[in-house]
């Protein structure tokens, strides 16, 4: 049998322990904007970035005033274009795996990849095959004044980047080589 003093002491100790445990729980609980954040994998240009179901390598980055496609449509567009050549594959499954999330993050702003080129000439929305990379370009149409600063290319298998892998590649816009025009390659297997 526990004496009344020890009993009281036990009660106070248990109470204090519970308050401490609740405080610890509050402290470790993620805030409302923390849990949906993407799982970011940052790699350099030319390095392979592998996430849950995305495997991306940025091969080349160029800036140009004009992009065109090599087809009978003779489609071309002028602007402040950022052209990214990349290889992309899935890791575990092809169902629902397409390169749907392609963003350029700079100065707190997010630019999504342009869907203006025909789908034959942009990897955007292309289906990703586990273990067998596809190669092609992704283009970003940037404001004319945006020619310098450090930003990040960000790729994911869904345009909803929450709670899934996102491969990020930092680039310095001022360091990116500039050419007069770029003919976009046709999307195909990486050779």
């Amino acid at each position: 049998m526990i004496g009344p003093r020890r009993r009281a002491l036990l009660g106070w100790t248990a109470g204090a322990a519970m308050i401490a445990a609740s405080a610890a729980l509050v402290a470790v609980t993620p805030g409302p904007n923390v849990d949906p954040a993407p799982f970011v994998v940052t790699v350099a240009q030319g390095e392979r970035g592998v996430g849950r179901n995305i495997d991306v390598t940025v091969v080349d980055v160029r800036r140009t005033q004009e992009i065109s496609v090599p087809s009978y449509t003779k489609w071309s567009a002028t602007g402040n274009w950022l052209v990214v050549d990349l290889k992309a594959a899935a890791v575990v499954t092809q169902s629902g795996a397409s390169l749907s999330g392609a963003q350029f993050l700079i100065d707190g702003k997010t630019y999504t990849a342009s869907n203006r080129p025909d789908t034959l000439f942009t990897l955007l929305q292309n289906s990703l095959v586990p273990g067998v990379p596809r190669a092609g370009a992704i283009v970003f149409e940037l404001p004319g004044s945006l020619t310098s600063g450090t930003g990040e290319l960000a790729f994911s298998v869904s345009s909803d980047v929450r709670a899934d892998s996102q491969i990020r590649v930092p680039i310095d816009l001022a360091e990116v080589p500039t050419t007069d025009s770029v003919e976009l390659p046709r999307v195909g297997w990486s050779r």
Partner: protein
Amino acid sequence: MTAPEAPPPASTVEAGRIRERPSRERRAGTLLSLGALVLLIPGVLLATGLTPWTEDRPEPVVAGASGTAEVGDATWGPVKAVILEDTTGLDVPSGSKLIAVKVPVAPHDPAAHPVHCQSPRLVEQRTGRTWEEATLDIGVPYSATEPVRCNPDEPNAALIVAFVVPSGSTGPYWVDVPLTVGDSTPFPRFSVMP
């Protein structure tokens, strides 16, 4: 010889307060409730945890020794899967291999119950890696007589699909034929070793 021990008193006096000893029935009740909690808490966790995995999840019907599976209104299989060594004229990258799969479909009553299905999928049994058919990606145009998914106009045509997998990938594989999208009805599954 010592005197026999006195039976324990029904109550003890402690610092001026009388503390009742819990009765036998009450102790049995406490044990019963604790035991119930021990069973119920993991049970609830298990049930709530399993629900999202079991609800509306289509179950595979694995083909038996005959190589065929009876699913929906059709007989599926037996399935043939081969690695195509000669890929002349096909767009297949180095470091990969091409697996061609033929799935015969025999609807029981195509006029009354046309069979609908999506393109077969290839699943590496060891890892669960899943590929979709790649007929267009290797440069083969769509053919009505060798369709990649069930074609109600050609009810008895076998599905012919091709998969591009990395050369390091090894069998055995599952060939799954998903039926209509978002459906929880079972689908036929075949084990193949191309």
